[in-house]
Structure formats: C-alpha cells, structure tokens
C-alpha cells in the first residue's frame, strides 16, 4: 500500500472519471496529469480545453507547470481567445471539468475565495479563476482536494463554484444548467451526490483508509453508500505512465 502516494491515487481516480471521446476542461496540477493519464490509457480520444484559449488532442511532450507553458502550445489543435473555449463551455459542449478547492460542503459547493475565521479575521484565497465557470457550466465536474475536517464544512463560507447549492432543484431555481459535481476525490475517499437529495455521500474508501477516519475528517454527518466500495489502487501500468509524465514528482509527491 505504500508504493504509491495519496496524490498518485487521486490522479488515477480522476483519470478514471473520464470517458473516451469526452471534451474536458482540464485545469492544472493534478487534473492535468489525470487527463494525460486517461488519454494514454482508456480515453485516447479525449479532447482538452484550456481557458487560456488552447485546445489539444495530442498530449504535450513535457510536464506542464501551467497551461500556457510552451509545450502546451506547440502542435496544439488550436490556439485562440478565452471566449472561444468559454463559449463551448457555456454552450454545454464540455462534458467534464476539474476544480480544486479550499473548502467543499455537503452539497458540493466549493470555496476558493475567502474563509471567515473565528473572530472577524479572514483568510484570503486566490479566487475563482475559471473554476466558477466550470462548476456553473460543465455537464459535470470533479473536485479534487485533501480530506480535512476544516476543508469539509457543512456549508462553505463562500460559494465560489456552485455545486448543488442547497440541494435538489437549486441549480434549476437559480438558472444554472443541470451539471453539478459528479465526484469529490480526496486523499482518503471518493464522495458522490445522492441522486435524490444531491447530498454528497461516501461511495469509495481508498486503500488502507477507515470509515471512521473519513467521518472524522468530514464536517457534517456523512451518509454512506451501501455497500461502500474500496478504491482500486493504481495499476502498475497507471503508476508507470504517471511517473513517466511527472518523473520528478512535481505534482505527485
């Protein structure tokens, strides 16, 4: 069990969320590696969109620190304006997008803007970037973040990227397209929305992680799928590919 890092498992789990031929709003860091891994395994025809204006079918030849690094431009499918790719997103053509977060709540709402602490002090985070747009407009989105109690409150202090809001029917009520979070992948488990209530519930425990550990790391009374699954560990092939994509472990350690 200690032959892969928690981040490696998160990336592998993220990759498995992609289906072949899908149009993906990729994002950076872990999701980017997940996208590349999926393309080299089960989803070779997945198409990557980047909010800087890049569209790519073939993976970049080198590890990317940002989506605007030169290897992501060379031999891209197309390079243009942000509105070109954001338009596709707003049209509902993007199957799935990935976002990270500082907080995620019971209904999959994500906060990357600011956290109000006890007293009146605040913690200022970088903000939405494209995350709010992906959460609003992609047909589904996946959240990747570390599983810590302070990061999993019952209600985020600021909705940067809307999930299911206050539950079933909320997205439609506020005018958002259906979408919403399909999964929250953490370093401990995978949570998915209950089809009825849209509340996130535990569907899969990562290898070696206990139910109690996940409950203790979640800030609300976490519902558990029955039966709860065990996340399959990365296969040797997945690990080999992943490590070839990021040989120095920039994003995987």
């Amino acid at each position, binding site marked *: 069990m200690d032959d892969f890092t928690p981040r490696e498992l998160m990336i592998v789990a993220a990759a498995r969320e992609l289906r072949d031929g899908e149009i993906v709003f990729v994002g*950076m860091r872990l999701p980017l590696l997940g996208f590349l891994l999926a393309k080299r395994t089960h989803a070779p025809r997945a198409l990557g969109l*980047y*909010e*800087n*204006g*890049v569209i790519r079918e073939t993976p970049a030849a080198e590890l990317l*620190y*940002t*989506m*605007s*690094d*030169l290897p992501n*431009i*060379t*031999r891209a499918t197309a*390079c*243009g*304006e*942000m*509105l070109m790719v*954001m338009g596709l*997103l*707003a049209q509902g053509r993007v199957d799935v997008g990935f976002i990270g977060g500082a907080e995620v709540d019971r209904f999959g709402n994500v906060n990357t*803007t*600011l956290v109000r602490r006890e007293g009146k*002090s*605040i*913690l*200022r*985070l*970088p*903000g*939405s*970037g*494209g*995350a*709010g*747009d992906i*959460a*609003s*407009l992609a047909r589904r989105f996946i959240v990747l973040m570390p599983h810590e109690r302070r990061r999993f409150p019952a209600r985020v202090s*600021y*909705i*940067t*990227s*809307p999930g299911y*809001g206050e539950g079933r029917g*909320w*997205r439609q009520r*506020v*005018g*958002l*397209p259906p979408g919403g979070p399909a999964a929250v992948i953490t370093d401990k488990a995978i949570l998915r929305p209950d089809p009825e209530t849209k509340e996130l519930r535990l569907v899969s425990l990562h290898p070696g992680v206990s139910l109690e550990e996940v409950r203790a790391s979640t800030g609300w009374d976490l519902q558990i799928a029955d039966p709860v699954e065990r996340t399959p560990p990365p296969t040797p092939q997945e690990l080999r590919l992943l490590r070839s994509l990021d040989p120095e472990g920039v994003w995987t350690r």
Partner: protein
Amino acid sequence: MTRKLMSLSEAIGRYVADGMSLVMGTALEAAIPFAAGHEIIRQGKRDLTVIGPISDILFDQLIGAGCVRRVIAAWVGNVSEGSAYNLRRAVEEGVPHFVDVEDHTNLTIALGLHAAALGVPYLPTRTALGSDVARGHPGLRPIRCPYTGEPLLAVRALAPDVAIVHVQRADEFGNCHLWGNLGVTLDAVRASRSVIVTAEEIVSADLIRSDPNRTLIPGFLVTAVVHEPWGAHPSPVVGYYHRDHAHFREYHERTRTREGFLAWLKEWVLSVPDRSRYMDRLGPERRRALRIAQSALSAPADFGC
C-alpha cells in the same frame, strides 16, 4: 501612420497616471508584461485599479509595492506555487495598505472586456448564477432573458484606462503580430482607452503586412510601442522563451514575509534601472536555458494577388 516607438520609462511615465485602471496579464500565464509592471513600481504609481483574469504574480508584486487601490480579477496568486502573499497581507492585515477586491470569474472578466470591445453596456451570461461571486456585485446584476424568461447575470462593461500587453513582434506604428494562447488580449486592447505594447522584436511594417490575419492588434489602437526583449520574464513567450518556473518558486519562498518581499523587490525591481540590467542579473546561463531550443515554424499562408 504615426511612429510610436519609445522607451518603457517614457511610455509608463506618459500614459500611466495615479488612479488609473490598467488591464494586464491578458494572455493568462504567458506574455505577462512584467517589465512594464516593474517600471510602474519604480515610478511609484499609486491608487491603481488592476484588472485581469488571473495575474500570476504580477498583481501580487504591484500590491506589495503599494501601487494598487483596487483589484478587479478572477484569481490572484502564483499559478505553479499557490498563494499570493502580498494580496493576503493587504486584504487580511492592510499591509502595506488595504485593497478592495472585486471578485470575478474568468468568464465574467472576459465578458466585461468583450462588452466594452463590442460597444455595449453589458453582456448576459449564465455563469456564476447562485454563487457568492455574483452576490451584491456591482458589475453582475441579475436579469431575465427577454425571450425565455430565464435568469441571467448582466456583466457590466469593463473599459480600462490602459491596456498593457506584451507581444512577439510589432512595427514602429504599433501593428502587432501575436500568437499562442490569446486569453482576453484582443478584447482588452479594444476595450481600453490607451494601449501600451511591449514587444520582443521591432520589425518592418512590411513583415507585419505579410500576414494581416496575424495582426491581431492594429496600430491605430496603440498608444506606445516599446522594444523590450525578455519583457515578459519569468512568464513564457511563444517562439522566444520558456516559463522560468524556478523564479516563480523563489518568489513564492521569499515573499512569505513582508521583509522577504521587500528584499526581493529591491533585488529584482528597485535596484535595476531597466529590463536589460534585469536580464544581466539573471545571467547568461539562465537566459540560455530559457530560450527555446528548437524552432518550429508555421506553414506559410499565401496572400498573393
């Protein structure tokens, strides 16, 4: 056609005044006009409003240097490393002073600039509905579609005083060829009252006219053209140099404290008079390592007659 070639210090001195709004970092992580940003810091501009989708570390530097009163952006941080410590100190502790932040998403920034570029007072969108980004926002008002009745947000036009953009090549009249990811650059240029271009190369009008479809910024929209090789370092410029990841990492480490930031600022901005001396400081080996190793030229298009 008017010749608009001048030095960076002249361009910033003449066209950026205290209290103005500036859009920068419009291509996102590439071609960020760091040289221009550093000159703004050296000239001690104050009370600026900085506008952009994500800024990588440029906005953080301007905030830490005390130039900024207001930020209109979707994201302010260090893309490969994480937090922007100067933004945090300014918002959380008022160091060096408090700044207002008008939060956006990338799409609402893009639409705000696009509205101004299209000459309309607003554009509608579905993004950010129900989010706290939109709650009570002065530039994101709830409206209804006149056809479908559905809820939408009206993104108010964003018309900056100045756009500062870094491009690959320009002629002395301001006609620019740019390529790679464009982000919101074209709308930012059209939305702004004046435009300062810094360019890796100044080339002949003849070369620029060989490809009118690459001339994404026509000279008549440009106020000043500055020849500033390496003007986007540490961000990358397609066809010229890579992103200097180590520089971003070093900035991240050194700016965790206010003292660390001030030392960094002195070393890389205040004590260097211009970009050429900045690149001397970077050293020939690092420059060589960042230069693209292998050219890959575009196939020609024929504009013959």
